[in-house]
């Protein structure tokens, strides 16, 4: 039943996707969230990603989906209908009925936007806009963040990962490497410099009389260990992706990505 419904819905909008296939990117605003000028604004942002990184993004908003249809599954089905992006394709789906969002990526883009970590990087930026109902801004941010992740991949030859920290696409990968190398080089220089200066002087007061300790003379005559108290501290575990809002994924062997609530 679930499969049949997904197929029906997919077929319904497939025609729209096909008709728009020659005019990438795609905006399908079934939930009527965007004005014409906002659509134009989003279109420009999506086009920029397509031009710069050969990645096509479809933005789809739906008023609702049946309760038994997962937003992620539906986004994956839509994604299967487009294959125009040379380096990857993405469907960004908003299900206004459940207030779900989902970022579906094909396997090409999956290498660039690394699983839920990449989606979390994007959602940290657009989720506040979705919550404040600034949908156009949110969609523009989806495009921008996709561009940043593509840029990071182009510069580093690998997808952005959480441990990279910072922004991904503003050239900070290189900047971070430079800064890290500078700090480490500064540390090495300090140690070498200190060692060179220290080598110029060997005059210092003795700190102890260990050299004059009479071997075998030590005898421990009294020892007492008294338990005093125990201090207990509790620290909440840092939740992975906390704040990103990415809580679900429908990824399989052909699809990547993830989604959550807004």
């Amino acid at each position: 039943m679930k499969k049949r419904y997904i197929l029906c819905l997919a077929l319904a909008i497939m025609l729209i996707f096909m008709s728009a296939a020659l005019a990438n990117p795609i905006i399908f605003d079934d939930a009527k969230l965007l004005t014409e000028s906002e659509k134009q604004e989003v279109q420009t942002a999506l086009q920029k990603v397509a031009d710069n990184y050969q990645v096509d993004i479809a933005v789809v908003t739906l008023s609702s989906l049946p309760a038994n249809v997962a937003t992620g599954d539906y986004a994956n089905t839509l994604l299967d209908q487009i294959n125009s992006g040379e380096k990857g394709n993405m469907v960004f789906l908003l299900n206004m009925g459940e207030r779900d969002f989902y970022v579906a990526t094909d396997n090409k883009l999956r290498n660039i936007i690394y699983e839920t970590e990449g989606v979390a990087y994007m959602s940290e930026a657009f989720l506040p806009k979705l919550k404040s109902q600034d949908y156009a801004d949110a969609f523009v941010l989806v495009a921008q963040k996709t561009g940043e992740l593509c840029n990071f991949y182009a510069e580093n030859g690998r997808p952005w990962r959480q441990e990279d920290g910072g922004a991904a696409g503003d050239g900070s990968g290189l900047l971070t490497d430079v800064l890290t190398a500078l700090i480490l080089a500064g540390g090495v220089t300090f140690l070498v410099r200190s060692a060179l200066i220290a080598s110029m002087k060997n005059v210092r007061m003795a700190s102890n009389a260990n050299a004059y300790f009479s071997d075998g003379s030590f005898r421990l005559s009294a020892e007492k260990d008294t338990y005093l108290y125990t201090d207990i501290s509790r620290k909440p575990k840092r939740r992975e992706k906390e704040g990103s809002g990415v809580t679900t994924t429908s990824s399989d062997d052909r699809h990547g990505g993830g989604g959550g609530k807004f």
Partner: protein
Amino acid sequence: MADTSVNYTCPSCNAPLSFKPGASKVSCEYCGAQIDMQAMEEMFAEKEAAAAAAQAAKESKWQTGGSEAWEAEEAAMMTAFTCSSCGAEIVADRNTMATECCYCGNPTMLPNRFEGMARPDLVIPFKKTKEEAVAALKDFYKGKRLLPDAFTANNRVEDIQPMYVPFWLFDVAVEADATYRASNTETTSTADEIITHTSYYRCTRTGQMKFERIPVDGSEKMDDAFMESIEPFDYSELVPFTPAYMTGYLADKYDVDAERAGRRADERLETSAEGKLRETVTGYDHVEIDGGTTVLKEDNAVKYVLAPVWILTTKYEGKPYTFMLNGQTGKMVGSLPIDKGKLMKYTVGTMAASFAVIFALAQVIFG
């Protein structure tokens, strides 16, 4: 005028005698006579007593006369002696026990300086010669990348003096008490939080231990840092003191008495005693001293010793640089000037090279 100093001269040819480093007897460089230490000490004991008496008499006269050219403080610091070899007046500070005549070069003892003072119990004879001291200084320069080129190029040793420095050696058996604060930390984890249990303990320790021959220099004018840096001496070569060992060398008598010097020995042994007790506080993740360490001396003995030190002085850009060599072991200590240009060059070079290597490695490893 009676001689107020004693030259150790050869009983055979009357030439001046010097003790050679590493020798067991005093030998005459001119006629080759070998004189045993004991025999030499007895031979010159009477001369030393006479010289001391003569100097005492001279000082008595000189003090009543009072030269107006000297301030009282200056006069108190310096005294004139008559060289028994050439008759010249030798001026030395009041702690000098042995020196050499600046006119004829004869090694000279100033016996009246021993009066009222403890006689050294032991002496560590010089083993390193002047040539070895100069060579050791040159070796000390090696590998010092920040040394100014001009320092080594124009370097000549301005002054080199062998000196017996007064040391106090402290033997002590102590009982030490210390209290430590120790803790063990255990971390557990639930689904939501990390829980850290830190248990604290108070650990008291009492122990007995002995220290043997902690050296503290007894000379005010010798820099303590230098003296502690040339440690250790090999005490197995300590021999009973005889003034004969001082022939040809400078020697100071102590002006820091054993009680004052003992405070420095206390500081050092307290640190060591605390460290020994700390080693027994085991089974804890973290241990720190809680309060001070109490060290009670149970049994102690002090020996007055003369230890051999070569003092070498050089000048660079008008500033004197002093180096000291352990006259027994050959350990050289001192502070060298730093070429600021070289320091900058090495700093910038290291920064550039390490940055290039680290950045390249980061690119290779992390892509």
